C-alpha cells in the first residue's frame, strides 16, 4: 500500500440536532467512523445488508441476561417481522421469557445492595435487576406441567431442544413472548446448553414425578444435524450475536461444518480476546477457523448489548420502512 491509501477518508465530525431520528443519529456515527460509533454504524449496515439479501439465513445468538433486562419485546418483534430466521439462545434467557409469559416480572433494582437481605427475602439479583423467587417457582411448576404433557404426547420420542421450545411456545398465550412469537413465525429456537439453566431444575421436578419410561427425552446431539441442515440449504449465512458463548459457537459450528463460513457477522460483546474464550474472540480469529469468510461483512461492537442492539434494530427498521416485507427464498 502507498502512503495516500492510508489517508483517503477524513473523519467527518458529528453534527446533532433536536429533530434527529435514530438512523440519522447512527449516520453521524458513521461520519465519524471511529471507535464504538464507527463500529455501531457498520453493524447497522451489515444487519441491513443481511436482511435485504433474500438468499441469506439470519441466525440470532442470545447470551447474557438481556431478556430480563428489557430486550424481550425487541426480540419477539423482529421474529414476528421475520428479520431473523433462527434463534440460538442460552436456556436462561428463554426461562426469563417464560417467567414473564406466565405472569411474573423482573424489577428495576440496584447493583449496590446487601445481597444477604435479598437472600432473606427470597429475591434473586441479576446485576441491577431483581427477580422474586416465587416468579421462578410458579414458572417451574407451570413448565414442569408442560413437560409432563409434552412427554405424554411425544410418546417416548426423543426431542431436540428446538422441538421442545416449539412445544412450549404452542402452549403460551402471551403475544410478547419470544417463544410464542417464534412458534407463530415458525422460527426454530435452539437451546444448545438447555440443562445449564432453570430448565435443568424444571426437568428435575418433572423427572422425579414419573417413572423412567414416562420422562421427557431431550437429546442435545439430535439438533446438530438439524441446524447444519438449515445452514446447508441456505446460499448465504448471516449471524447477529448478543454476547457470545455457546449460542455464538453453535452457529459458527454449523457454518463451518457445511464448508461455507458466514457471509455476514455482527457481534456485540464486552468480552476480551486475551483469555482465548469464544465470546471475546475477534471475527478475524474466527476467519482462521473457517467459520467466517475472509471477505465477510463483519464487525464486533464492544459495548453493552442493551444499548447497542436496540439502537441497531431501530436504525435498521427505519431504513427498511414500515412497508418492508422480507422475502427469503
Amino acid at each position, binding site marked *: 500500500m502507498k502512503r495516500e491509501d492510508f489517508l483517503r477518508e477524513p473523519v467527518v465530525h458529528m453534527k446533532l440536532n433536536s429533530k434527529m431520528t435514530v438512523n440519522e443519529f447512527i449516520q453521524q456515527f458513521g461520519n465519524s467512523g471511529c471507535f464504538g460509533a464507527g463500529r455501531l454504524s457498520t453493524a447497522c449496515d451489515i444487519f441491513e445488508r443481511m436482511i435485504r439479501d433474500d438468499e441469506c439465513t439470519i441466525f440470532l445468538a442470545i447470551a447474557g441476561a438481556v431478556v430480563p433486562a428489557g430486550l424481550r419485546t425487541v426480540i419477539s418483534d423482529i421474529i414476528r417481522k421475520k428479520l431473523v430466521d433462527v434463534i440460538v439462545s442460552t436456556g436462561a434467557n428463554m426461562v426469563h421469557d417464560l417467567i414473564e409469559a406466565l405472569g411474573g416480572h423482573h424489577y428495576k433494582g440496584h447493583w449496590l445492595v446487601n445481597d444477604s*437481605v435479598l*437472600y*432473606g427475602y*427470597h429475591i434473586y439479583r441479576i446485576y441491577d435487576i431483581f427477580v*422474586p*423467587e*416465587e416468579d421462578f*417457582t*410458579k414458572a417451574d411448576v407451570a413448565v414442569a406441567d408442560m413437560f409432563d404433557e409434552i412427554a405424554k404426547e411425544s410418546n417416548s420420542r426423543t426431542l431436540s431442544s428446538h422441538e421442545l421450545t416449539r412445544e412450549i411456545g404452542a402452549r403460551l398465550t402471551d403475544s410478547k413472548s419470544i417463544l410464542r412469537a417464534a412458534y407463530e413465525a415458525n422460527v426454530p429456537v435452539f437451546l444448545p446448553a438447555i440443562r445449564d439453566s432453570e430448565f435443568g431444575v424444571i426437568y428435575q*421436578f418433572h423427572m422425579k414425578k414419573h417413572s423412567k419410561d414416562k420422562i421427557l427425552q431431550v437429546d442435545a446431539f439430535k439438533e446438530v444435524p438439524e441446524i447444519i441442515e438449515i445452514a446447508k440449504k441456505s446460499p448465504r449465512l448471516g449471524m447477529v450475536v448478543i454476547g457470545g458463548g455457546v449460542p455464538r459457537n453453535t452457529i459458527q459450528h454449523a457454518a463451518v461444518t457445511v464448508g461455507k463460513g458466514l457471509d455476514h457477522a455482527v457481534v456485540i460483546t464486552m468480552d476480551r480476546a486475551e483469555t482465548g474464550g469464544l465470546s471475546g474472540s475477534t471475527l478475524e480469529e474466527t476467519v482462521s477457523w473457517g467459520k467466517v469468510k475472509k471477505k465477510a461483512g463483519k464487525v464486533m461492537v464492544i459495548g453493552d448489548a442493551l444499548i447497542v442492539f436496540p439502537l441497531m434494530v431501530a436504525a435498521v427498521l427505519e431504513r427498511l420502512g414500515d412497508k418492508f416485507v422480507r422475502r427469503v427464498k
Partner: protein
Amino acid sequence: MTLRKKSKSKNRLCGNCHYHNMYEYPDLILCSLRYQNSNDFIVPTLGCCEKWTPDSQECFCVEEAMKKRNKNSVEHCKE
C-alpha cells in the same frame, strides 16, 4: 431499605424446612418433597409435617408470615 434482623426461629415450620421455595411471599411455599410425590405441594409457610428437615437458610418468610398472621389473628400450626 433497612437491614432486617435475621430470623432466629427454627420451629418445625414449613418455612424453616430444607424443602421450601417461596410461592407467595410470605404466606405460601412450594414444598419440593411433596411436589415429587405429587401431593398438594403449595403449603402455608407456617404449616408443618412429619418430614420436616431443618434448613440453614436464614430467611424472613416465617418471621413475616407470623407478623401477618398475628395481625390477622389466623389459626396456625405450632411446634
